[in-house]
């Protein structure tokens, strides 16, 4: 079955260069932020001179992964739900010379994948992970996520969520990732710069992106299906951490902090440590 992408003559230059045209247009809902984050990722890839020959896209399960899987013109490895970091470990240790960009979601990384996420940070695995945080489980139809705000009405919390959301950036910092940052999907320039920084740093780069899900978060939690309304909510509920220093605790309560949380390029990770280790113990 051919898609529209097969028949067009004109493409966005990033699509022409990096994406499989027969997989376009991608299947994200109208107004969903996933495409914006993919756009930022491709800009980072282009600015760094990465190519489909040396870069692999790794996915989990979730909207972000369904859309990015088999979209990149190079190799795509889509893991079972939550296992993306375990899969990335096998891939990177087998091919430490290649770049791996991971696309993961709230559930994939923070719920079912929590354990692998923590240990990948602890091992400081040299990959770049982009967390698509839309505060809900989009692909499966709008269930609560570990990142959903308190009070959120979702299909599995019809009376409102009573659990606190998970700050995965703090978890990544604590567990040992080299570089951790959080931006909104519309913070185009800082996001591209963070992705570039993350790809370049040795060790695990964890970049959380707050993005709009008009279909599920919008409709169930905010009672609107307008993507611009969801973007507005995200903007009102986030604050740059530099600005947050001047605000009171009440003023930043319930807000996401944006910015870079840690940058420790000196911290070695399992990839280089294993290579050093082999120099010592390899006999043949």
């Amino acid at each position, binding site marked *: 079955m051919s898609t529209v992408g097969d028949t067009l003559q004109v493409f*966005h230059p*990033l*699509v022409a260069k990096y994406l499989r045209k027969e997989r*376009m247009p991608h299947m*994200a809902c*109208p*107004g*969903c932020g996933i*495409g914006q984050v993919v756009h930022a990722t491709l800009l980072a890839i282009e600015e760094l001179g990465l190519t489909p020959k040396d870069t692999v896209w790794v996915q989990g399960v979730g909207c972000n992964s369904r859309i990015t899987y088999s979209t990149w013109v190079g190799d795509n490895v889509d893991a079972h739900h939550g296992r993306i970091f375990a899969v990335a470990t096998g891939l990177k240790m087998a091919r430490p010379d290649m770049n791996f960009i991971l696309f993961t979601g709230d559930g994939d990384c923070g719920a079912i994948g929590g354990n692998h996420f923590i240990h990948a940070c602890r091992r400081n695995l040299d990959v770049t992970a982009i967390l698509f945080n839309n505060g809900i489980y989009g692909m499966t139809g709008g269930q609560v996520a570990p990142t959903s705000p308190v009070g959120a009405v979702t299909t599995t919390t019809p009376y409102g969520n009573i659990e606190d959301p998970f700050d995965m950036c703090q978890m990544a910092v604590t567990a040992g990732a080299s570089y951790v940052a959080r931006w909104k999907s519309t913070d185009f320039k800082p996001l591209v710069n963070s992705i570039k920084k993350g790809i370049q740093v040795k060790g695990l780069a964890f970049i959380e992106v707050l993005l709009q899900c008009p279909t599920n978060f919008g409709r169930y939690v905010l009672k609107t299906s307008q993507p611009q309304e969801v973007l507005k909510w995200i903007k009102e509920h986030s604050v740059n951490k530099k600005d947050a220093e001047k605000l009171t605790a009440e003023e930043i309560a319930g807000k996401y902090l944006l910015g870079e949380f840690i940058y420790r390029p000196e911290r070695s990770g399992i990839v280089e440590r294993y290579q050093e280790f082999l120099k010592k113990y390899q006999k043949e």
Partner: protein
Amino acid sequence: MPTTIIKEFCKGCGFCIAYCPKKVYDLSEEMNKKGYRLPRPVRVEDCIECGLCDLYCPDFAILLEKRKKKDRPKGKEGR
């Protein structure tokens, strides 16, 4: 117009219309094959080639080709 709209990729989200700082776009009556109403650049002379429409579009449906300064219309420089 330095931007091109790839009609069949558009999903009618309206970001280009809402977030263009110069309000270059309006919603048109034209629909693509999927039934989404397309944006149309109406105030072309106001375009400052900031590229926000290109970046905001989640579907790679707008591409900006920045013109050289000498090719841009005179009189409407800068912001």
